């Protein structure tokens, strides 16, 4: 009986350990405002890019990107691609090895799970309509120009 109890206890401990390892695996709980961009990534065999709004707003006011750099207030609405970034547009205005790390660090941006739709994570639109299903009429006007 005591051997059986030990077996059971060992099994329970194992299960608890595995649960701890797997318990964090839930869907959709990245930070509020994270933008996932998957305009071209999946098709190109890259992970989609994640833009952490919170990280950038600690370091820059909204105006820097949404006015100076002309990035529209619309997830996936800027048609950003690597060529434009290397040419110094959009992310490339800073991610050039001078203000911030440069484009060789592919995996730092392209870090989303493959297949994640373009979205603003945790946004009201996501909550209402599900990821990647922003209503057609919801497109936001450009911040500038």
């Amino acid at each position, binding site marked *: 009986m005591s051997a059986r109890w030990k*077996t*059971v206890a*060992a*099994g*329970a*401990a*194992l*299960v*608890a350990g*595995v*649960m701890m390892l*797997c*318990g*964090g*695996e*839930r*869907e*959709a*709980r*990245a*930070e*509020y*405002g994270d933008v996932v961009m998957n305009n071209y990534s999946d098709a190109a065999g890259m*992970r989609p890019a994640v833009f952490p709004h*919170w*990280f950038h707003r600690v*370091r*820059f*006011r*909204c*105006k*820097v990107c949404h*006015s*100076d*750099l002309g990035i529209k*207030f619309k997830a996936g609405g800027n048609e950003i691609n690597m060529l434009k970034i290397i040419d110094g547009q959009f992310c490339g205005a800073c991610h050039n090895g001078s*203000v911030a790390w440069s484009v060789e*660090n*592919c*995996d*730092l941006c392209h*870090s*989303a799970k493959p297949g*994640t739709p373009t979205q*603003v*994570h*945790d946004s*009201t*639109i*996501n*909550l209402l309509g*599900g990821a990647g299903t*922003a*209503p057609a*009429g*919801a497109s*936001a*006007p450009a*911040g*500038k120009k």
Partner: protein
Amino acid sequence: MKLLRFAGGSLLAALVATPAPAQELPNAKAVYDANCAACHATGIGGAPRTGDARAWSDRLGAGINALYANAIKGKRAMPPKGGNASLTDAQVMAAVNHIVGLTAAPARRTGAKPVDTSKGKLVYQVVCAACHTSGLAGAPKLGDAAAWASRLSAGPGSMYANAIKGKGAMPPKGGNASLPDADVRAAVDFMLTQMRGGTALPPAGAAAPNPAAPSAPTPVASAAPAVSVPVAVVLAPAVYESADPNAFNRLMVAPGRRNPPPAEDGIHDPESPGTALLQAPLLSFQSLPRANLGNYVNWVTALGKKQIQPRWDTRDPKAEPAVMDLNIVREVKGSMPDVVFPHKQHTEWLDCSNCHPAIFTPEKGANQISMAAIMLGQKCGVCHGKVAFPISECRLCHARQKSAGARTVEGPSAGAGRQ
């Protein structure tokens, strides 16, 4: 605790079983049908029924080798080799494997393909979850292996039929008559996979990569990573349902689950080499003033107290915004307090051209704004509800009581728009 012991035992069984010879001989089904089915298909003499996951899981607790030994030498009502002494040991073991395989993957008995549960999960969430999450009206709860096992013993075919035609308190198609039969079946399949996942039994899904040996118990080795917390149902992004119907804040994200590190946050791929290098939000946020929703950070206060010093220009760290201190009061319908729009807090972050004229015409009375539009991401909702504080913080905008006698445009004033 009982569940844990139960799960522990079966997981241990899975581990113990791993090195055992687990190949199924081609005649295993024939051996089973001829010698075992008489009792094990019906449960005569207390025999554990094929497909009764719980009964078999208990016995597997001693390891598959013990099962082999009992089947060969007999135990209690079980005669040695099922009463057919002419069987070889290998044939008996194959029959045991056959039973365990059938029990582990009951969906396969119908010849079903490996189950893609994404569709079933969706149907479950929309149609079935109302009863099957809480166990309402006696519905077997998702992940409750014992409740499902007794129903499963009649075979998944009858479960599909019951789900489609209804049985007892279960309405046909869960009360949604427009649902295609295939969707109902998908939901049943999903619930069955949850039963296996929740009790650490070998999941049918784990067998998927090994279609060449459909009912061999070899996949148990891969069962361990599939162990999950029972009833992890995601209703919508960032909304979680607790297994306990009386749980406090049942539909809300538990405080400990906010701001997880990138590898665990659900949109980052933990396999990406860059993911582990990214900063976890919690590290950044812990020193910042708290808010109730969104990032759970009061960004405006953080900026005001210079706890963060975001640049106004990419290169010039000394550039400063031209802040305009002008409150706009919008009188709103009904009893809601009027909206006070503080230019000050907005111009600390934004340029005039971010909002004017594309989003807001800079003219009194020229902007039609509704909460519906905001929820759809227009007007204030271009930022609020996406990155600025969410719209559920009603009183941060609806800040002025009607009796204050506000008019449309007022001069500078402090205190409005606290975030």
